[in-house]
């Protein structure tokens, strides 16, 4: 019973992971903005890969669970870091995000930091107010 449950779980995880990878790929293709594309790639793609790795661990009845879990940990630790680094670098290069009602908080903070000069650290704490109000 336990073995068949794990077999069902493995098939479900592998298929679900592949479906999440497909959803992430559609998001990378269709979303309007570099930052929202990063969103789709890093979240849906990482979840899909993590589910496939969990499916591998379940399909072998825990035989290679240690290696699969290590790969999963590495993936979950590095994918958000890489996504954050890419979006921050894109913002520094000057790629404009499509902003909603809350505006571009990072640009506002950097502008305030330049205006305040040496007291940039103090200004970045103050600038949360105007951004939230606007």
């Amino acid at each position, binding site marked *: 019973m336990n*073995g*068949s449950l794990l*077999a069902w779980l*493995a*098939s479900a995880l*592998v*298929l679900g*992971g*592949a479906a999440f*990878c*497909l959803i*992430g*790929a*559609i998001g*990378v*293709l269709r979303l309007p903005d*570099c930052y929202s*594309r*990063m969103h789709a*790639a890093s979240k849906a*793609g*990482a979840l*899909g*890969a993590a589910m*496939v*790795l969990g*499916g*591998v661990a379940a*399909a*072998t*009845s825990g*035989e*290679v669970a240690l*290696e699969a879990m290590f*790969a999963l940990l*590495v*993936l979950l630790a*590095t*994918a958000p*870091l*890489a*996504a954050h*680094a*890419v*979006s*921050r*670098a*894109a913002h*520094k290069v000057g*790629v404009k995000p499509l902003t909603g009602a809350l505006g571009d908080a990072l640009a506002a*903070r950097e502008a305030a*930091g330049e205006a305040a000069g040496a007291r*940039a*650290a*103090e200004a*970045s*704490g*103050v600038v*949360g*107010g105007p951004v939230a109000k606007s």
Partner: protein
Amino acid sequence: MTVDMVGAAWVLPLAFILQGVSAALIMVRLLRGPTAPDRVVAIDALTLLGVAVVALVALATAQAVLLDAAVVLALVSFLGTTAFMLMFAPRKTAAERRAGELATGEQRGDELYGAADGGPDGGRGA
């Protein structure tokens, strides 16, 4: 390693087909991407997909060693994306270009301290 899956005869090919379609969609974005960060995001998504495909190949061929390749691919993907970030970092003078990594590290350090100082201030302000 022994693979025990329900309907492995059709689950694995279907998963491979889904991954192939995903790779094709991401390749379209990689070739079309209007800006360089779009392409970096597409490369990041492709390597994440590659980790999943390597894990699937490990299942299909019952080779446990391929999971180590998946770990290494995840690590190399992170290093590659970070290297692209350093490529985007704005560098003005020759001195900064020579110490490029150091310069970006200093900039990020300043902003990190700003954010750390800003947290308690915002709490007191609110």
